[in-house]
Structure formats: C-alpha cells, structure tokens
C-alpha cells in the first residue's frame, strides 16, 4: 500500500475533496484553482519570454486547470498516488511540450534548445505517450519528492548529498560548488554520485526503473 503524499494540509485536503467528488465540489475546485494558479503561471513564465510571455503564461495556465478539472471529473487523479500539485505539474509539463510542438508546426520560431529540454523532461516523466501517463508520472515525481523531503525516509540521503544533489539539479557545476563550499571537486562529485545512487535504489525499491515509470518485480512501499 502506498504512503499518501505529505503536502501542505489545505492543498491536500482540497485535492481529496475534488477527487472524491469527481469535480462536483465546485467550491473546492475554485479554491484549488486560486491556490495553484500562481505557481503554475510561474512555471510557464520561466519558460517563455517576449512580448507575449505574460499572455501565453495565462493561456497555458488556464489549459492546465481545465485539464486538471477534466482529470478529476474522469477519476484520473488519485490523491493516494500523488499530491495534487505534483499531478498538476505533470499536466503542465505535457501542455508545455504540446505548445512548443504546435507552435513549431504552425511555423513559429521555437528554439531547438527549448524543444529538446521539454522533450527530455517528458521522457524523464514517461509523458511521451500522452495524457493518460499523468498519474504514473506524478507518482514517480512524488516518490522523488519523498526521497528528498523525508529525513531518514526512503532516500536516506545525508545532508551533504541532499544539498549537492539539489544544487546540481539547479545547474551548479562540481567546480563551482567545490569553490563555494571549500571542498575538492572530487569530493563534490563523489557525494553527488552517492546521492544519485541512493535515489536510484530507493526509486527501484518503490518500483520505478528506467525513464518510463514502469512497475518492477519488487515490493512497493
């Protein structure tokens, strides 16, 4: 049996109400919409610029919230598998990729860099197949969040491994971290590799292997 995700109380409760009512609890969904919109909008704002960046972020955020509502109405969101924020993030990632592909197909100027990164993210989440993968992708992301969030939890990373793995994900090079932290670059690299290996093993124990979230033979926590 999976451990339900631990999130901010209100948000988790709203997610459960919306899921339980299959979207019928309009008040709950409106609150969820209000709470999630700023963060989702920030997701798109960080990825777009130009004269229409703000307008584009608004438009794509609305698409995400519509898709979220539809998913809840159709029973595709399970609060036991992922937090509502994680599930919404999976939707947003997919919508961003679709937007870039559509823009390029229409003849818009989309940098190869942007498209490559969006496709790589989708591959990491196993989203290449389409919307039905949101729940599975969200579950994978939730597992990663648990590993990083819970001290002594499934990941069991040390404080240093935790810090270095997060800094590396934010773009820090080993050398830059080494200079900043007064450690040898080799030490930074060793701790990073160690952190990743712990994550890899923890995810594998939870049934996540490879880029596509598929179930292995082992036990699920």
């Amino acid at each position, binding site marked *: 049996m999976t451990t339900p995700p631990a999130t901010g109380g209100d948000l988790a409760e709203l997610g459960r109400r919306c899921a339980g009512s299959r979207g019928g609890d309009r008040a709950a969904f409106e609150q969820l919409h209000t709470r999630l919109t700023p963060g989702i909008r920030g997701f798109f704002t960080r990825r777009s*610029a130009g004269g229409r960046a703000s307008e584009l972020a608004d438009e794509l955020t609305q698409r995400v919230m519509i898709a979220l509502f539809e998913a809840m109405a159709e029973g595709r969101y399970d609060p036991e598998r992922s937090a509502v924020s994680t599930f919404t993030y999976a939707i947003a990632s997919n919508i961003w990729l679709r937007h870039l592909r559509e823009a390029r197909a229409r003849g818009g100027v989309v940098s190869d860099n942007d498209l490559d990164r969006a496709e790589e993210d989708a591959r990491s989440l196993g989203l290449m197949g389409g919307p039905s993968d949101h729940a599975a992708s969200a579950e994978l992301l939730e597992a990663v*969040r648990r590993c990083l969030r819970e001290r002594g939890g499934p990941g069991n990373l040390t404080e240093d491994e935790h*810090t270095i793995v997060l800094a590396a994900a934010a773009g820090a090079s080993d050398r830059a971290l080494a200079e900043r932290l007064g450690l040898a670059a080799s030490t930074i690299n060793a701790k990073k590799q160690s952190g990743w290996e712990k994550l890899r093993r923890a995810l594998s124990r939870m049934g996540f292997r490879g880029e596509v979230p598929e179930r292995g033979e082992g036990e699920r926590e």
Partner: protein
Amino acid sequence: MDDRTLNNLVRMAAEIEEIERAAQAGSSSSPRLRLAGTSAERPRTTKRLPLAVRLSPFAAAAACVAAAVMIGRGPSGGTPSGGGATPVADHSSGRGATGQDASRENKLLARNGAGEGPGIGSARPVTMTAEQFRAFMRQFEAPRELSSGVLAIYQDAAGVVRCVSWHPQAFGATPIEKLEPGELVKATYGQQCSIVGPHRLIAVAVSGPKENLPSSAERAQELAQCIVGDAMIKCDADPPTLSVASASCVPHGLHVMMETLAMGRP
C-alpha cells in the same frame, strides 16, 4: 535510471516545491517562513512604472511623421503586456532546493562563511532561510554564452520581402539597448542586400543566449517570415506593430530592438 534522468527529476521536484510554496503563500492559515528569533518578513512590494513611461515608446513611434526618409524605433522586446521592464526569461529562475527543512542545507552552507574547520555535518545554527538558499543556488546556474546580431529584412513597395540578411555580432560587445536612434539602420542598410525602387528596411537587433539566436540563414529567414507575416496578418505594419511582432517571434530569453527605414516613399 541514468544520472541525467535523476537530475531532471530532482529539478522537477524542486519546481513542485515552488508551486506548493506559492500555493501556501496564498493561504492565510499557513505560517510565514521566517528565521527563528527574528521579526516577521517584510512584505513584498512590486514597483510598477507610471503609465506614461510604459506607453512612451509607442507614443514616440506613433509621433513619427512619414517623410522621404522615415526612421522609427520600436520598444524593446521581452516586455510583458502592461509592464515597462524588459525581463529576460531565465530558464532556471526559481529553481531551488526542496527546502522543506532549511537546516539541512544551512548546516553545510553556513560553514563556508564562518571560516571554521572542515567538518561536513557540523551542527551550526540555522543562518539561511529557504529563500536565501534558493538565491544561493541561482549563483551556480551555468552562465550561458551571450551573443547578438541584426536581422535585416527588405520589403518592396508591395510589402513583399525581397532580401533577408543576418549580421551576427554586428555591434560587437555593445549592448543593443545602448544603441543610439538610427544607429541600427545605419549599420545595417546596404549590407549584403541591394534593392532598387521604393523599399523599406526593417532592422531587428536581438541579443541573449547564443543558442537562441538564428544559427543559419534558414533560421534567419524563418524569423523574418514570422515577424513580417505576423505584422501583415494584423493588416498594419507600423513600427509599434512590427516591434510587437518581433518580440513575439523571437525565442525566449532574447532582448529585441527594432528600427525601420523607408526609402523612396512620399
């Protein structure tokens, strides 16, 4: 699962934490994060430029009178609707730690500033909030190679694009925002393209991460078609419209500056 995939997943997990923080910031029941023993956080304020300043570039462009030689300068691109700033979108802005427990990062990070001896995991008091940690993270984001260039689009009297040329690094290290009015068209006109009869030069300067700039003649042509095509669809090709079209066509993360020069028009 390879290292790159893990790295991507960790980054995405950190982004989700940002979304949850934004969601909790909107909840009155959630306590504000603050350092133990300090006063409450200062409220954030957002400055907005006065309306006149935000609209002035368009007002200036509209005041240009058609003459034998017409020079128009459009506003800088990257301007969000209704705003006056010219942000450059940062792919990695906002990324940060899954900083639910700031003390985990702080114990490692605070050690560096104190000059104390090595000792990973030494028990130091918390000295950095989650926001400060994210700011710390941002300084490690890999710097991207910056570059600039000018796209020159020549239209004939019928609006048909006759020639497109791309001039990488046309102004060297000079930021395009520092160009004087008219400098853009002066540096670009007549370079590589020669048009007979009434025509117009649309000079679009772009600067930013090199990987987002046109990397070939084909990419330059695509950008030109997007700018002119978009403006034509709007049935209006005055400098402000072209400028907005320019800004919407370029990839994210680029500054845009545009000037036009009409030759041989009454």
